[in-house]
């Protein structure tokens, strides 16, 4: 089923007062792909992410995940269904260790029920071993395994971004939304992040990212959606987007 659509977005609009942050956006995300949302600042990309993940309620339109209507569901329900995300401003849990941060990707956990936590310790401790193993595997993937017992607050900026990715991977979500994963990271770390992202479709995951670095977008995306002023203005393969007139216009302005 290579061509199945994991997410369908139908006619999403979002108004903030008089501002049309999103206007009638419809798109489909294909299974096991790396796709990108690009566009100038304020084009509505992050608003779309927030709408898809339940942090913002759309003014109109529907969102389907694996054929199920998830429009208007709260963020935790959408996450539990298998849509994981990272944030533009990296969100890790500073006072928890790197391993704890990653293990928090596992959900549901029997030990999070206070009765099981206190009275049925055997039950959750067994599950905990499995969860830790899974989290360690993902810390290995992002290269943070040797920092497992450090507090997340001791990590640098780029490492925090990687840690957030490790948590997202540990959720076992099928669709992963990454909001500017490459902002502020360079060189080897950026290369490592690219390797992680491009390895995901082989693991049965679909990645949708928002990114401003065009070299990276063109290199890793299989499909690109271009936004401007809250509207989807173009979509296509990287080589077509590069030469699309409307896209060039959106970034550089109309020729005089």
């Amino acid at each position, binding site marked *: 089923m290579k061509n199945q659509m994991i997410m369908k977005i139908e006619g999403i609009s979002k108004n903030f007062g008089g501002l049309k942050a999103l206007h009638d956006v419809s798109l489909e995300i294909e299974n096991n792909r790396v796709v990108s949302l690009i566009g100038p600042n304020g084009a509505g990309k992050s608003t779309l992410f927030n709408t898809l993940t339940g942090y913002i309620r759309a003014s109109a339109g529907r969102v389907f995940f694996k054929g199920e209507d998830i429009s208007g569901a709260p963020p935790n329900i959408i*996450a539990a269904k298998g849509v994981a995300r990272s944030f533009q401003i990296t*969100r890790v849990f500073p006072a928890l260790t790197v391993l704890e941060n990653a293990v928090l990707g596992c959900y549901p956990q029997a030990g999070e*029920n206070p009765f099981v936590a*206190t009275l049925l310790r055997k039950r959750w401790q067994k599950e905990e071993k499995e969860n830790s193993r899974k989290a360690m595997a993902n810390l290995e993937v992002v290269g943070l395994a040797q920092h497992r017992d450090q507090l997340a607050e001791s990590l640098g900026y780029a490492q925090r971004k990687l840690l*957030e990715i490790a948590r997202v991977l540990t959720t076992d979500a099928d669709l992963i939304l990454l909001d500017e994963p490459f902002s502020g990271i360079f060189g080897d770390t950026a290369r490592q992040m690219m390797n992680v992202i491009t390895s995901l479709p082989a693991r049965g995951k679909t990645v949708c990212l928002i990114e401003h670095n065009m070299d990276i977008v063109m290199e890793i995306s299989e499909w690109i959606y271009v936004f401007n002023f809250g509207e989807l203005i173009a979509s296509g393969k990287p080589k077509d987007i590069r030469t699309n007139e409307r896209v060039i216009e959106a970034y550089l302005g109309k020729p005089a």
Partner: protein
Amino acid sequence: MYEFILHLLIFTGIFIILAASCDLILGYAGMYQMGHGAFYAIGAYSAALIALHWHWPFYLEFLASGLFAGIVGALFAASMVRANADYFSLATFGLAVVTFTVLMTWDSVTRGPLGITGIPGINIFGLSIVTGLKFLILTALITAATIYLLYLLVHSPFGRALKAMREDEIATLASGRNTPMMKVVAYGIGTMFAGFAGNLYAHYISFIDPTTFSINISILVLCMVVIGGMGTLKGPVIGAFLLFIIPELLRFLGLPATTGGLIRQLIYGVVLVVMQAWNPRGLMGIKLPLSFTKIRPGHKEIA
């Protein structure tokens, strides 16, 4: 003197239960709890009323008073959980004030300012526990059980999820957790233990009136947690010990009663201010070697 020491230790136990359970809400779940005394009161009054009117066996009455406080706590939290953190803490403060007023004015149940007298001692399977050493042993057992249960809770995935929520609620939501529900559960558990503490208090003192449960008790418990160290279990235990025992020792200075009371308030205030200025993490949050290296990095680090 012996009796007095027993008395101090029994109260220390009660305050350890209060402070440690407050810390579950405050230090672990990250909800500013300024109304813990309200649930202490609910536990004490429900214990007194059950003991006087229904004569249940102690273990049933004990569980019922704690569960009742916890259920009221959970309902309160459920009604306020959508408010942001600042408004939530204001609401807990309001709850403490309202509870005091209800105790003062609901004469037909609480007997208002007269209070409830003649609360019987504890009788467990024929063993009568009224005062002194036996009561201390019972208090110590219940305190130890409370600390043990809280220890299991905070060192479990449940505790980890609470800490995550405290650190970043949005990211916790993004990992699938129903954070409003977690808040209700944590608040319910914390206030249940406050109810247990109230139960012990009512049986020990045998007379309860609203003045014990004014806003001061909530603030005292809050100070114990903050000074001892939020988000640790040792912290509130040490905080409860220090803030209860040290002011009691003032009695030996032979000050007039009124001055003693004022000095006690003064001590709480000064200690809180000094603690916040010197180390906002509380006593148990202190890591001297670490903070010294941060303040004065070695030459190598500068180069």
